[in-house]
């Protein structure tokens, strides 16, 4: 691989804790929760009645959406807003040829409305006399295809470098950022808009996770329901939101005097190859993703001061991830603090890796580690430092973000301070 290095020069976030980067980050550091009763639909009879929803959202007139509004769903509207914030933050547009700007995203299938869904699928007959030869922009299938959002971003901001969308469940946007990092390193583009958008605050998607019993049923106390690594955890809390990062070739960023949050220095992606619904008990796959990312970063284990764990608050994930962390960092001195911001944001599924990588970059910028709220007593590996319930100072120059996807895909990113 070349000597090209990759840094982060812009971040945009729409989350259950705020509709911009700094509001979200401030609430994360203050230990607030985004959980509450579901407002997107009436969940009174559902086994789980709460989620971490985005609140008081509007796309705003300032976002140059042009004619692409009808291509967006609830989640990708968050994504466009996050992209606008990230691009404004980086001030990159206009400084590069369009062909030097790529897009790499992790996006879930859209939160399609049940009425639209039934209307679409119950039509057994096709009309072949249509005279309108233009694409039906409002067709829900296009709005809700994961691949649509990348093209919308490319069209709005005239990005003509490589664009792509990855869908590996909860590892999607972690992998998307990893691929953006590699594209810049190998010279396919100078800058890449990367991140993800997703929403589980919709009955069809929410029902799937209810069916497999993955969601917390702590209906009486939504803000304490997401309890990564805590012995009383009973499932994850559904979330929604988006995060977009501007990744840029380091020399280019420095030459133009860009503000740099941190440098992406390592990325590992692996498959667990075990079972579709389960993790290998020894944490293999996750271990290898972390080892690869650390090895590529050329950092020592003790340089990594904080791991933003996948930490979903599900019984198996947290136990296995903790074991994997203890295996990887067994010889680190000091060991990194492990925390999960899902305790506050809920699980953003395809966007989880992106928002958590954003938190890692902000942690590097501010030299601070966010808390894991609701962690009282852990039953996970005793050799892992799960930190405390309040923010703390970041020791070490680098941080790590883990994502573990349903079906076996894993990703691990290492971000370090860029002196």
């Amino acid at each position: 691989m070349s000597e090209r290095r990759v840094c982060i020069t812009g971040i945009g976030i729409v989350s259950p804790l705020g509709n911009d980067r700094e509001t979200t980050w401030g609430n994360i550091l203050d230990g607030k929760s985004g959980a509450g009763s579901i407002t997107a639909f009436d969940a009174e009879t559902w086994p789980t009645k709460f989620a971490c929803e985005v609140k008081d959202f509007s796309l705003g007139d300032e976002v140059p959406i042009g004619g692409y509004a009808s291509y967006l769903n609830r989640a990708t509207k968050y994504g466009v807003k996050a992209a606008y914030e990230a691009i404004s933050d980086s001030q990159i547009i206009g400084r590069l040829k369009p062909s030097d700007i790529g897009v790499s995203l992790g996006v879930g299938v859209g939160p399609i409305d049940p009425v639209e869904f039934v209307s679409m699928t119950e039509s057994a007959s096709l009309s072949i006399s249509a005279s309108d030869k233009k694409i039906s922009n409002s067709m829900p299938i296009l709005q809700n295809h994961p691949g649509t959002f990348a093209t919308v971003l490319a069209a709005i901001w005239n990005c003509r470098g490589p664009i792509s969308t990855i869908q590996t469940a909860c590892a999607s946007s972690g992998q998307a950022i990893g691929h953006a990092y590699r594209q810049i390193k190998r010279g396919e583009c100078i800058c890449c808009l990367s991140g993800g958008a997703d929403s589980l605050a919709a009955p069809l998607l929410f029902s799937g996770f209810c069916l497999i019993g993955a969601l917390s049923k702590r209906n009486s106390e939504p803000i304490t329901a997401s309890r990564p690594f805590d012995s009383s955890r009973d499932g994850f809390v559904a979330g929604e939101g988006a995060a977009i990062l501007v990744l840029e070739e380091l020399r280019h960023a420095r030459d133009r005097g860009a503000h740099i949050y941190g440098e992406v220095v390592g990325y590992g992606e692996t498959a667990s190859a075990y079972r579709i619904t389960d993790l290998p008990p020894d944490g293999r796959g996750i271990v290898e993703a972390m080892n690869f990312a650390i090895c590529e970063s050329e950092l020592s284990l003790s340089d990594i001061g904080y791991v933003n764990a996948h930490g979903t608050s599900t019984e198996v994930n947290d136990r296995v991830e903790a074991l994997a962390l203890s295996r990887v960092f067994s010889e680190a001195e000091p060991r990194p603090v492990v925390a999960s911001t899902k305790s506050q944001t809920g699980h953003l599924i395809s966007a989880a890796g992106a928002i958590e990588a954003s938190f890692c970059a902000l942690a590097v910028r501010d030299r601070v580690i966010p808390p894991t709220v609701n962690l009282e007593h852990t039953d996970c590996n005793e050799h892992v430092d799960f930190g405390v319930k309040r923010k703390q100072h970041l020791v070490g120059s680098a941080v790590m973000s883990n994502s573990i996807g349903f079906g076996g895909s894993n990703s691990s990113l290492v971000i370090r301070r860029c002196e």
Partner: protein
Amino acid sequence: MRITTSDRQVVVTGRSVVSTLGDDVTQVMEGCYHGGDNFTELGSTNSSNGGVYVGICNDLDIGVLPDKKVRKAMVRKDLIGLVAALKASADARITKGSINPDQFGIYVGSSSTQIGDLEPYHRLLRQCVVNSSFDSKLFGRELSGNVNPLVMLQTLMNNTLCYASVALDIRGVNGNFMDFQSAGARAAVEGFHAIKEGRAEAVLVGGASGCPETFQMQQGIDSGYLAHGEALDPESTIKPYSQSRCGTILSEGASFLVLEEQVSAIRRGANILARVADVSMASEGDFAFLNSDKSTGLPRCIKRLIEAGSIELDKLGLIFGHGNGSLHGDIVEYQSYLDAFDNQCKSMKLTSTKANLGETTEASANIAAAFAVDILNGADIPPVKNFDSTGVNENLAVSAERAPYEKSQILVTSRGFSGLCCALVLEKI
């Protein structure tokens, strides 16, 4: 584990095609040589004058599945993809454990979930939508008693990747791309780089496309993308690159290649079929069928390969294009080649097998690449069925007849709805 910059060569050691004309590459190519196709009328239409057609992969060889029960855990496009992935690995004589699992990867181009497969979930949903209103309380009450949790697993869009990785013990690099018609080509690009950069010794790359659903078809009809209408004869409908083209037909299909690092492949005694000389990507910056009548992405994508020296004009005699008979896409694509080669392509031929196999979307570039591998090993160039004339330019000949191929490079291209353009250069060993 350390990434190295090196002269690692990427070779092809296995390939598969699952298509409407069968699932043996040689047999499918024979079908294309003889003008075969296999399209079926889809459901009912509101017209008595003709219909809308699709391509279905009949007689899917589920005998290759390690566990037949997995059929129930995935929708059909994932099953087709899994069969193709397993067939490609078998073609490369890879068995579980024959390649270091950590150095074995998989990249898949995949379409969105086939929601039509998800009964009885649909039944309940339909009961709960009355007068354009969703009865959420009823749905919540009835859900767990009426719907098998398996429905959640069926909806995973990365199922081909997941099940193939378990079946073949693939623990290395992986990803599931959702880039419409270019998704499978995107997967091949990523697999190439993973091997080049030392992150994998072998990578399964491919794409899978399922039977389109009614509501998707309607969108294709409304846009003029799909062939439809009065007295439609499916056998002569798809006319790639022809002046008289009238749209395409969507088909099921899947295809995978096994890419391997050359030294590693030799070490395990693999049969090396071809070399992947280089790959490239670019994008249009808009939806491909909505933007201008000219592509900027595909010429840029190809020019990168020419400038890098990966395409050698005296070696390149064949472009395996995307050509699907669509009104807008084919002419833009054809013009792209003229632009990319500055009209210096009189010694090249352009071909496409979509008139035989239909538009296999996410799998289409992988099918073309699998055929290209066989052409580099002595198979003939398949003709473009139903071709009459481009009506544009004679500087790039469309391959209207079956013909032998004597040069050593083939360019495979893909240009998808998302605007992503990909190109692969395959070379004779």
